[in-house]
């Protein structure tokens, strides 16, 4: 009787497995297949990238498989997923490393397996890539910082909200902020504190800093979530300060529209996703691809948020030619 029970359980597990397989068999068409590695399921920015890549793949008739660590930004998770993806032998991989240095061996494994890899967003410290598509985090920070200080007329106190300790983006973006501040002698940095890219922590850190410093004129946040958290804190305390964020998420754009956020700098995750996927697919099809796609880092403010003012679902990838053309003319690392 007890064993009957185990039997049933085993059966259940198997059927569960079958259902699972059906769930994923939907996009199981034969033919070319690419795999996209993103950092986590929680940050809207990577969702934009995934949607862009999906759209590109759909347009070009290729199956795309997503690998996202079960623990946000977990190095061991992504490492395992690389090994498992190699088993599935996708025709090409679009790869965003959760850590630009620690994932190098993972890239090496894909190289060894002879799978072409396109490096997206964060520039990996090593490994062979078909091409790199992304933009420079430091420039993002620099541009956002410069814009803010400009709006502050180069005078006043600013605070910085850092991202996750150990994340390269945070480090680079904060580096950009600091450079901008150095350029502006009239501005003093009163505090640089961790918000871990998290809205709640940014909110509470800002609340606390508002207590410590009676005069805060500017806030530089290493991503939009933290910027919006800071704005909540300012509102609740009835304090005025100019806030800039990074990423140009839909929510940030709405905040810019509402005049709460002065600006966000953007690498346009959606288009990055598109281009990343396109490069990979073109490579499979032996079409020429440039070795580098340096996206511009435009500052988005109340004057130019237009083209971002669409939910990603309603956007669709620009044609390869248009983007290629525009990027060819755009100055690398431009401002």
């Amino acid at each position, binding site marked *: 009787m*007890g064993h009957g029970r185990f039997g049933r359980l085993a059966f259940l597990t198997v059927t569960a497995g079958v259902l*699972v397989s059906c769930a*994923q068999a939907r996009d199981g068409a034969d033919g070319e297949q690419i795999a996209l590695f993103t950092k986590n399921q929680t940050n809207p920015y990577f969702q934009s990238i995934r949607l862009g890549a999906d759209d590109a793949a759909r347009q070009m008739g290729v199956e795309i498989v997503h690998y996202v660590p*079960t623990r946000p930004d*977990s190095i061991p998770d992504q490492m395992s997923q690389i090994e*498992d993806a190699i*088993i599935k032998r996708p025709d090409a991989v679009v790869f965003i490393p959760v*850590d630009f*240095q620690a994932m190098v*061996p993972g890239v090496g494994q894909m190289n060894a397996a002879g799978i072409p890899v396109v490096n997206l967003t964060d520039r990996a410290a090593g490994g062979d890539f078909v091409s790199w598509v992304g933009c420079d985090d430091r420039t993002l920070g620099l541009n956002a910082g410069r814009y803010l200080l400009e709006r502050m007329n180069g005078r006043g106190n600013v605070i910085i909200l850092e991202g996750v300790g150990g994340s390269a983006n945070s480090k680079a973006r904060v580096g950009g902020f600091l450079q901008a501040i150095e350029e502006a002698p009239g501005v003093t940095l009163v505090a640089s504190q961790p918000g871990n890219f998290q809205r709640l922590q940014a909110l509470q850190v800002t609340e606390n800093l508002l207590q410590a410093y009676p005069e805060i004129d500017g806030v530089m946040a290493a991503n939009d979530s933290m910027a919006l958290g800071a704005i909540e804190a300012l509102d609740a305390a009835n304090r005025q300060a100019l806030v800039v964020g990074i990423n140009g998420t839909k929510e940030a754009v709405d905040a810019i529209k509402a005049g709460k956020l002065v600006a966000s700098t953007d690498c346009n995750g959606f288009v990055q996703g598109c281009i990343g996927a396109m490069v990979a697919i073109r490579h499979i099809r032996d079409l020429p691809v440039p070795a580098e796609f340096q996206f511009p880092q435009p500052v988005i403010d109340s004057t130019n948020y237009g083209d971002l003012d669409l939910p990603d679902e309603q956007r669709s990838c620009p044609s390869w030619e248009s983007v290629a053309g525009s990027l060819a003319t755009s100055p690398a690392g431009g401002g």
Partner: protein
Amino acid sequence: MTPKSLLARATAVPGVAYLLVALIVAFSILGPGFASAPNLRNIGVQSSILLLLALPMTFIIMSEGLDLSMGAVLGLAGVTLASLLAGGVALAPAAVAASGVGLVFGVINGLLVVRLGIPPFVSTLGTLGVAQGAALVATDGQSVVGIGPTLPSLYASAWMGLPFSVLVAVAVYLIFHAVLYKTRFGTYVFAIGGNRESLTLAGVHTDLYHIGIYALGGLMAGVAALLLTGRMNAGHPTAALGMEFDAIAAVIVGGTSFERGNGWLPGTLLGVLTVGVLRNGLNVVAVSSSLQVASIGALVIVALVIDSVRTSWRERT
């Protein structure tokens, strides 16, 4: 343990064993390439680090304790190892130093729990913060790279098709099995959880052994750092955060309980493998990531449900 009691145990195999079989069957049917040799290698490699943490965790849980600091300590030991290697120190001394860092934290945990009487959950939660902080301060949160070729090539080496990390895991398992079932220390691990008083009355330096259990935990975190660093070709301060919870889950799922020193080491091995097979299988079958996250939780619960069902069935007869 002796053949007979092993048999007695075998009749009480935890539910996870049945789950493991079911999963393997299911994935071999569904996942093309799941049953392939290279993928089995993957499962081995991906499970080995977790096993290194789960084995000492079994001892700690048997002693009615807990160690939440393992992941953080692993991170700290990893950056220590990487920094030393990057600084041109030879592998052997660097590895010793890294294990030493782990050992120190293990001993500190032991002292906090045994000497100061701070509940394990809090003690190790505190040392978690300390170790993580230390690692971040030391590295400014960045990976430590440029560790030279020795460790990576060692990690990449294999023997009879078995990757280095798997060999280490197997060796460590055999050692732990022998320690638990063949040595005094092992006997006292059972006794500390089962009836500490009696051990003391038997004239044994209970505190020493109790601290030793935690020290072992720290030491293994240090050893695990060796593998993780080799795997990443870099030391990362926060790479292993949260791994200790996976280890605890694997141990409990394997049939070890928080009470009365009731533990079973082979169960821990099963638990770790099941977690490894599930994560790997779901990737090979390319299940959507959110479903993967949920199914890890489901696995843990189902395994324990099978157990409780079986025990209630046992009681009824």
